[in-house]
């Protein structure tokens, strides 16, 4: 177990540096930023799931006093702006490239989902923009919508050049060996699963403010992004909105992301373009109903899985076929989520020797689907952990013990899975045992009996999950189709007075980097964390960055800072050696001092910093200044893993499911700030419980979104959730300097399977589609 550490160094639950501005209302989110002369945008959105745009009459809208412009996709295309790209090219099973349909930022000829933007009104004030937008007359020629992913391949083609609505057929693993092992298995468990479509719902709706300076040609875009440098790259290289050196993208305080603020969207593209066209800054902020329609959605898989076991209960083969709904267009990383972030995780924590995964990625007339917290790994965990649980029930085995029998053991690492990953380290049994102890597994029968006396059916469910985080080794990622490297940048500027400004390419939108990264740097330099300022989210200040997703920030961005700090210390040793007239090999750095070994001579970090900027007594062969940077490219993914256990009680009268206990024991490697790590687990679990019990993004057969507000789409409220009991085990990551693995997604990965295993245990049914609402459970109780 992680020990509590006092002070502010690594391992201490330091209270967050960023909190003071948030709790006093001084946060600075995109919609809080206003500039002189700013105009307001409202988007024209398709009311149809699939239609041809016959004509757009903007005359009446344009004539409204206060309207500055009514712009459409046709004008954007005429201005030469390019399409929004998909950043990950997936290779199909026959070696050919996936089929990527053109994705114009604003639709011009056809619209392919309800809410798709095809124009915008820019006006002096928001009310005028809304009023004018109502006056735009657009004639659509409706076409039949393709909504159900399971039927997409048999439906009319949505895009001209995409046969069967199939973006790709992707495979991983040895099909022949897997089928042979299944054919000779002593027992085969079969399961059909649906992973429900989710709508991420960060509490801050997306927003953007575009500014163009006609005098300098500079463009500035304030936007709600998890990865501002990636946004700048896409808008420059693909959309051709502005050259990279004339475009500054700022993601200031961002109110949650969960993946939904990774993609580069139509709206921020359009406001910056409109600002240039109109000659005024243009601001847009999503209404929540627009967020539901036009933010990237998550999950949405239909899966058939088969697990073969031998006479002893050892897993011999797993075969998975999934149809993944990609939506109307391939979003920025939409193609990679149901492939490389999904199929590669099918070994889970187990020594299953034969695995084969086949994925059909299909287009439908629904909002694009992209990363949502966990991104592929919750879906993989759901398949593995639901089918393992089902196998245990079919065979009458204790589900914890069947898992234990099949775990990869500590002595097996590094462990190469049959699905392309090499796990560097782990101790899965340690987290399983800790979780069993925490939940008091032995006491479950008694708790179940007590619940029965109250008219409740109590169930228990496990999820022993693994995830691949710390994205990613660049060469490997690019070889697999990524359009960018996945290293991270870090820069440390030691100021002349000895305090430190840290620049990171990671982006914090709730994760607390301003604190955690400061802890890492402060400990390395032996200074206080209040002497460290962390800067992020501005391409005008930070050199480059790939941003925050995939639980990568500390493992990759934090490691870059460690490397940069090492360079600072190295240069400091040379300066100190000169000043102390010692050999550099005799100078050590410890506890904030450069010390000549076996002497009483030393200099403080601050003294050396000052000397670097006032180089009077200074080495001739050394440049002044004390500022260093590093790009850190990881050697491998990191592999956080753990055991989550849920207990639920089902009311037999009403079908209501209450989550009564939830324990999570996670191995994130070294923990820098336990308070923040536990908070990340709480939030992830809450979202995972939301998926299992409450949330579903639902379209009707015409492609109209039926869950377009908080009155129809239920994200967890305070009284929907119990207290969570969380702990960690520690096996340090073997290949990054901090030994860390990442903690942001684990809760959302483990919780859905744990909760649904508990619900199906309580009900005595093989499966129930998520979310397990009272109505579905009530029906299941009545057969």
């Amino acid at each position, binding site marked *: 177990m992680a020990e509590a550490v006092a002070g502010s160094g690594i391992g201490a639950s330091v*209270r*967050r540096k*960023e*909190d*003071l*501005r*948030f*709790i*006093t*209302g*001084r*946060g*600075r*989110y995109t*919609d*809080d930023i206003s500039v002189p002369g700013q105009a307001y945008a409202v988007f024209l959105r398709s009311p149809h799931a699939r239609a041809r745009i016959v004509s757009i009459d903007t005359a009446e809208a344009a004539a409204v006093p206060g309207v500055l412009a009514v712009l459409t996709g046709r004008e954007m295309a005429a201005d030469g702006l390019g399409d929004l790209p998909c950043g990950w090219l997936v290779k199909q099973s026959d070696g050919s490239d996936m089929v990527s349909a053109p994705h114009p930022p604003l639709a011009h000829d056809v619209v392919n989902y309800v809410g798709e933007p095809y124009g915008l009104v820019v006006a002096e004030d928001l*009310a005028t923009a809304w009023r004018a937008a109502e006056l735009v007359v657009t004639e659509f020629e409706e076409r039949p919508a393709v909504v159900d992913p399971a039927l997409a391949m048999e439906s009319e083609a949505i895009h001209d050049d995409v046969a069967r609505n199939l973006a790709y057929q992707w495979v991983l693993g040895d099909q022949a060996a897997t089928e042979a092992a299944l054919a000779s298995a002593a027992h085969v468990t079969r399961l059909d699963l649906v992973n429900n479509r989710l709508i991420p*719902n*960060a*509490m*801050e*709706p997306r927003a953007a403010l575009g500014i163009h300076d006609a005098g300098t040609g500079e463009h500035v875009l304030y936007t709600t992004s998890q990865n501002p440098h990636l946004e700048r790259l896409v808008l420059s290289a693909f959309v051709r909105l502005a050259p990279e050196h004339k475009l500054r993208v700022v993601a200031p*305080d*961002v*109110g*949650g992301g*969960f993946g939904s603020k990774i993609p580069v969207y139509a709206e921020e593209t359009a406001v910056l373009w409109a600002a240039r066209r109109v000659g005024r800054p243009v601001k847009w*902020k999503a*209404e*929540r*109903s627009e967020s539901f329609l036009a933010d990237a959605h998550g999950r949405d898989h239909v899966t058939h899985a088969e697990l073969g076991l031998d006479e002893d209960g050892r897993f011999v083969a797993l075969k998975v076929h999934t149809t993944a709904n990609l939506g109307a267009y391939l979003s920025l990383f939409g193609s990679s989520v149901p492939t490389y972030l999904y199929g590669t995780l099918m070994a889970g924590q187990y020594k299953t020797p034969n695995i084969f995964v086949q994925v059909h990625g299909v287009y439908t007339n629904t909002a694009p689907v992209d990363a949502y917290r966990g991104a592929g790994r919750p879906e993989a965990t759901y398949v593995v952990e639901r089918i393992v649980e089902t196998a245990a029930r079919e065979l009458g085995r204790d589900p914890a013990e069947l898992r234990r029998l099949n775990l990869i053991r500590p002595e097996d690492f590094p462990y190469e899975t049959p699905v392309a990953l090499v796990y560097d380290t782990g101790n899965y049994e340690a987290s399983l045992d800790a979780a069993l102890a925490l939940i008091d597994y032995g006491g479950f029968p008694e708790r179940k009996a007590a619940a029965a006396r109250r008219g409740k059916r109590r169930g228990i469910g496990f999820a022993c999950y693994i995830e691949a985080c710390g994205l990613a080794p660049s060469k490997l990622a690019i070889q697999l189709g990524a359009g960018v490297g996945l290293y991270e940048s870090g820069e440390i500027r030691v100021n002349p007075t000895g305090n430190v400004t840290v620049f990171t390419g990671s982006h914090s*939108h*709730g*994760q*607390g980097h301003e604190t955690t990264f400061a802890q890492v740097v402060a400990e390395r330099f032996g200074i206080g964390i209040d002497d460290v300022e962390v800067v992020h989210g501005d391409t005008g200040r930070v050199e480059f960055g790939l941003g925050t997703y995939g639980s990568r920030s500390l493992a990759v961005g934090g490691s870059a800072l460690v490397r940069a700090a090492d360079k600072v210390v190295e240069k400091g040793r040379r300066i100190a050696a000169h000043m102390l007239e010692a050999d550099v090999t005799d100078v050590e750095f410890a506890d904030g001092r450069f010390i000549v070994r076996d002497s009483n001579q030393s200099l403080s970090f601050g003294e050396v910093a000052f000397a670097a900027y006032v180089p009077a007594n200074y080495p001739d062969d050394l440049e002044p200044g004390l500022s260093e940077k590093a790009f850190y490219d990881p050697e491998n993914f990191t592999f956080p893993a753990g055991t989550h256990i849920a207990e639920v009680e089902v009311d037999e009268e009403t079908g209501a499911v209450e989550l009564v206990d939830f324990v999570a024991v996670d191995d994130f490697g070294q923990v820098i700030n336990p*308070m*923040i790590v*536990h*908070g990340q687990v*709480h*939030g*992830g*679990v*809450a*979202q995972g419980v939301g998926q299992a019990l409450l949330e579903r993004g639902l379209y009707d057969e015409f492609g109209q979104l039926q869950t377009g*507000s*908080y*009155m129809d789409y239920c*994200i*967890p*409220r*305070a*009284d929907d*959730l119990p*207290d*969570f009991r969380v702990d960690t085990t520690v096996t340090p990551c073997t290949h990054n300097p901090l030994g860390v693995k990442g903690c942001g997604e684990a*809760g959302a990965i483990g919780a859905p399977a744990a909760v649904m295993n508990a619900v199906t245990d309580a009900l005595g049914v093989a499966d129930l589609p998520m979310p397990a609402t009272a109505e579905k459970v009530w029906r299941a109780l009545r057969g």
Partner: protein
Amino acid sequence: MKLSLTVNGTRRELDVPANALLVDVIREHLGLTGTHVGCDTSQCGACTVHLDGRAVKSCTVLAGQAEGAEVVTIEGIGRADELHPMQAAFREHHALQCGFCTPGMIMAAIDLVGRCDDLDRRTVREGLEGNLCRCTGYHNIVDAVLAAAPVMAGGADHG
């Protein structure tokens, strides 16, 4: 429309559209951007402020309804160097992550503590069900509210 109201202790005379919402007045006319808008159906509670001492969702109050009223926003309950006990408890218990729901959550929590004695974990959860948070899973928010309650009861009146 002329509007006269007191915001964070200061008397304000404003000219606002007749259909303006209280939250528009707070954010756009007074520039108090700590009060947030997270939805369009009065569900999320990010816009919660105190109107004559009671928590209200300011997206659901017409500006005209606040004529003559006392309004307190997140900017009015404490300062960085003199935090309200609820603000201090949110920081101490890591009851916020992205910070977007936080101002509304703090304003709702202060109201809850003010009108309920002997709160427990269940009643805090029920009392805050009108304020959505997507980051924290609420666990630490409950901790913070229960920690702030006795401090508020025993301490000075912070409004």
